[in-house]
């Protein structure tokens, strides 16, 4: 027992600093399954409140889909609860390989390897493939899990300005002396909702002999005409060398992720990726649920079409109301408020009006770029969106940020 007062004081001081900076994160307890309508207890001990959820990654509304819940029950009965093993010892069931094959076919790649999460996939993929003789060139807004994965890798790394193809080209020219070049992107950027220009990126990759990596976590299942992802939307199916994605968002929302791509690259991950080698196989119950999610997607595009309609309706409603939103066509719609305190105040007032939407601010987004990130779902019906829009308009009027430009909001509230 060496947890002395000195150590306690040290951490209490750090936690105090996080609180003072307004960065302290508190969990809200949801007393219902995930969905468009949820019951929330916040703060802890408060009366449970029904709210409309516009901040889940439940894009296709599959998190509590009855067929997936049933498939999970069946999977539990047929294959049991846990594997008590990593994949390569005695943790691989037939359904693990079946899911890998289903994902490969869906994404249009050569092979796939499952990971406990996409965070783990991103943590393991770079160190499995690259050495100090290589260069990773990443968009400056890639997800934190990719940043961590690059940190774990001995290859050199550099960045290009978000979505700036001219800057990327310069970097590719600059690093022609390297053994391998990898261009690293998110398919859909989770904080801004915009998509990578994968068609242009592929052209640059071909011109400068580079591999293309894309994290499709906020795209798989709904971006592109049949929901295959950003590479489908950009017309470059089959051209991605490395795709990582998650089953924890649109594809049932439980957990799990994968690396999908060139056969040798996937095999290198199977031999070398530490989060694959040293953590348990995905639970059979989740595999069964994800397999059902893909089966539902194969039947048709109704869910992603409804999501697309919802996103269009929501963007139009917010724009007409006079909010500043980030342009794009994905179901991630950031409502820009610029000032961190304003974003927190608006989020709190929205909750009082029965709408659950969270404020994001530095360091999660750039300084002076605070926002409420809203996310649409195929679970949302028009009445959800209309009620949520009414709440946004009421709160927007209170803070007088409707019909105002960025400059006007910043002039009033500061950065």
């Amino acid at each position, binding site marked *: 027992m060496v947890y002395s007062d000195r150590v306690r004081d040290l951490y209490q001081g750090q936690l105090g600093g996080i609180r003072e900076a307004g960065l302290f994160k508190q969990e809200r307890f949801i007393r219902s399954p995930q969905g468009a309508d949820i019951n929330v207890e916040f703060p802890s001990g408060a009366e449970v409140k029904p709210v409309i959820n516009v901040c889940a990654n439940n894009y296709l509304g599959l998190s509590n889909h009855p067929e997936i819940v049933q498939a999970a029950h069946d999977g539990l009965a047929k294959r049991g609860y846990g594997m008590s093993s990593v994949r390569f010892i005695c943790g691989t069931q037939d359904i693990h390989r079946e899911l890998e094959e289903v994902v490969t076919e869906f994404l249009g790649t050569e092979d796939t390897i499952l990971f406990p999460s996409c965070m783990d996939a991103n943590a393991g993929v770079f160190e499995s493939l690259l050495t100090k003789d290589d260069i990773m060139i*990443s968009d*400056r807004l890639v997800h934190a899990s990719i*940043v961590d994965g*690059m940190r774990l890798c001995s290859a*050199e*790394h*550099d*960045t290009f300005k978000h979505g700036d193809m001219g800057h990327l080209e310069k*970097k590719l020219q*600059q690093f022609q002396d390297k053994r391998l070049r990898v261009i690293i992107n998110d398919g859909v950027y989770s904080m801004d909702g915009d998509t990578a220009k994968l068609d242009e990126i592929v052209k640059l990759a071909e011109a400068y002999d580079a591999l293309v990596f894309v994290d499709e976590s906020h795209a798989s299942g709904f971006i592109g005409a049949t929901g295959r992802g950003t590479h489908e939307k950009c017309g470059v199916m089959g051209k991605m060398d490395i795709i990582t994605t998650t089953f924890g968002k649109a594809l049932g929302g439980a957990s799990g992720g994968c690396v999908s791509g060139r056969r040798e690259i996937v095999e290198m991950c199977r031999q070398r990726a530490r989060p694959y080698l040293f953590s348990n196989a995905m639970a059979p119950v989740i595999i069964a649920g994800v397999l059902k999610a893909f089966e539902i997607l194969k039947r048709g595009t109704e869910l992603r079409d409804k999501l697309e309609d919802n996103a269009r309706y929501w963007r139009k409603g917010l724009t007409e109301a006079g909010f500043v939103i980030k342009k794009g066509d994905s179901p991630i719609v950031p409502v820009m408020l610029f000032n961190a305190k304003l974003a927190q105040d608006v989020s709190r007032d929205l909750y009082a009006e029965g709408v659950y939407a969270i404020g994001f601010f*530095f*360091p999660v987004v*750039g*300084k002076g770029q605070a926002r409420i990130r809203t996310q649409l779902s195929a679970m949302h019906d028009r009445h959800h969106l209309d009620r949520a829009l009414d709440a946004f308009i009421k709160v927007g009027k209170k803070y007088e940020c409707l019909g105002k430009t960025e400059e006007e909001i910043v002039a009033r509230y500061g950065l």
Partner: protein
Amino acid sequence: MDDLKDVILEYVIAEYGDEDDKITYDTPLISGGLVDSFSMVSLKRFLEVKYKIAIPDADASPEAFDSVHKIAELVRRFTA
């Protein structure tokens, strides 16, 4: 030495600045969120090529790269 600072400032503005950023010699680059630690690689490479120096990784800390002024001091140490 102002020449050195101006060369670095010009590079930093082109590489990391947006239209709205007013970057000066003392603007905190990394702690201020303008430059992430990964992006330091190209800056380090630029300095090494331009001034024909080798900056050991141990010296290329986020603190040492946190402003144009500090970067100039670092370069001076290796060119002296």
